[in-house]
């Protein structure tokens, strides 16, 4: 059995269910792997952990990885399996405050935490949809206060991850029917979302380990899709103060919006469309000044993906 520490980008929430299910249902064990899952503190925490070799595999936002590799060319880290085909970047607004469509954002107040991943994509989103940024009043808010501010009506919409912000708002007592979720990927954003990343030094030495890992993850995703409640329970087992229904809901949202997209259902989980990815790189360049020339091959490789029939989600 090979020991393989795996770091998430964030805390143990519903969307982490596939990995826990892969543990609980023995998919990792089938691949002769013993996986220990650690929580993280954002992609920018997970990437260096993998790049330094502290963790051979991790889960992180690929857009952050693009920037990381641009800043640290040659760092031994690369993405090997796309999980969030559509990134969860979204704008969540309230109908009662006049936000029903993208165009309604003009002339409204948008709450955005400056370091927020979704907010970082907002200029691209605005550009693709012809929004005049000067007509949107942007209110800087903190993560902890983002949803409460919307719940209190201090802002009309916020940027955030579709599943997190939406759910938090519901928990804060905002009626579901009052919420508008504008998933940026549905409005011209070509960006991908989170992927499994690996330390390349490790992967080159142990390709079969990585492939085995990815195989098990795909199984986990299938399990989660089949029984979200069980998935949520697997999370709660590690997070004793958690709430099963809530995490199951969060998991369902993630599966439906980000993971099991039409493209994935048609082509299978894990690979990317190079053309779309190149467009994504162009979109990143709207808000980020590249130091070097980004190349798809250093950022993503399909070399470790298991056979494609193993990746089909139907």
């Amino acid at each position, binding site marked *: 059995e090979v020991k393989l520490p795996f770091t998430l980008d964030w805390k143990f929430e519903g969307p982490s269910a596939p990995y826990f299910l892969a543990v609980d249902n023995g998919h990792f064990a089938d691949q002769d792997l013993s996986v220990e899952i650690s*929580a993280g*503190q954002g992609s920018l*925490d997970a990437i260096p*952990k993998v790049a330094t070799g502290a963790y051979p595999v991790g889960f992180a936002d690929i857009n952050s990885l693009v920037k990381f590799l641009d800043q640290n060319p040659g760092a031994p880290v690369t993405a090997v399996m796309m999980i969030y085909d559509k990134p969860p970047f979204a704008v969540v607004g309230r109908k009662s405050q006049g936000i029903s469509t993208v165009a309604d954002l003009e002339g409204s107040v948008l709450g955005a935490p400056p370091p927020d991943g979704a907010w970082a994509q907002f200029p691209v989103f605005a550009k693709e949809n012809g929004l005049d940024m000067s007509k949107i009043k942007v209110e800087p808010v903190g993560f902890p206060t983002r949803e*409460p501010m919307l719940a209190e009506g201090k802002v009309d919409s916020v940027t955030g991850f579709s599943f997190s912000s939406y759910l938090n708002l519901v*928990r804060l007592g905002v009626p579901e029917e009052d919420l508008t979720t504008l998933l940026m990927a549905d409005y011209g954003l070509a960006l991908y979302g989170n992927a499994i990343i690996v330390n390349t030094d490790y992967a080159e030495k142990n390709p079969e380990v990585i492939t085995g890992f990815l195989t098990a993850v795909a199984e986990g995703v299938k399990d989660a899709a089949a029984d979200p409640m069980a998935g949520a329970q697997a999370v709660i087992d*590690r997070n*004793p*103060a958690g709430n099963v229904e809530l995490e199951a809901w969060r998991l369902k949202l993630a599966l439906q919006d980000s993971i099991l997209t039409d493209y994935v259902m048609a082509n299978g989980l894990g690979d990317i469309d190079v053309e779309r990815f190149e467009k994504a790189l162009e979109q990143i360049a709207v808000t980020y000044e590249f130091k070097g020339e980004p190349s798809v091959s250093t950022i993503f490789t399909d070399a470790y993906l298991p056979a494609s029939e193993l990746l089909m989600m139907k």
Partner: protein
Amino acid sequence: MSSKLKNLLIPLLAIVVFLILWEWLVWFNQWPNYKMASPSDVWPAFWQYKALFAKYSWDTLWRTVVGLGLAVVVGVFFGVVMGFSKTMRSALYPLLVGFNAIPKATLVPVIALIFVGQHDFNTVLIAFMISFFPIAVSVSIGLSTLEPEYQDILKALGASKLTIFWKIALPKTLPEFFGALKVSATLAFIGTNLMEIVEPHGRGLGHLFDSGKINADYPLMFAVLIALAVLGILLYYIVVILEKIFAGWAERPSDH
């Protein structure tokens, strides 16, 4: 007798008054839970998870105490070095101050990367790093402002600096030292929780806080904060007892 009772009653009374004020504030402003939970909301949350509270409190407590212990040792060491040598004082002080002006939260990832996976060690390290400075400062001030008349008593006998430190300087500055210890104890707590929240690894009250956060369970979050406060007070009383034992002489009769 009656004074001992008073010593017990007054803090309790103060706490009760504080809780009532808090409850009233929330009620008066009609604040929702996610803005500020009230004590009456917090209790059920606490009761529901009482087993977890007990377990995690212990996690947090022992790591805090170990970190604090380390801080005492290192802080006293730095304090002695800086207190006895003016050169070392002017060399070390700016470095220590600079180090302390850096938010420890930002160092957490660095530490976590250097000592991968050693959660207990990392937590203790952060608790230590955040809390040793007040002790170093107070000891160094205690030593550098020690009245020469006191030093002379032993100096005249040819005693070494170390002896003077143990027999005169340290006992003389114990009240300040304990004051610093009270500050450091609360800081060490913050350090432990910082690590538990920022670099979660499934243990300690910080983790429980995080769980509460994920679930938007605001009463639970506030309950954790209260638990932290209670632990802090507990630690404080331990320090007070130590102080009574070792530095009781310094307390001046207040009024007659």
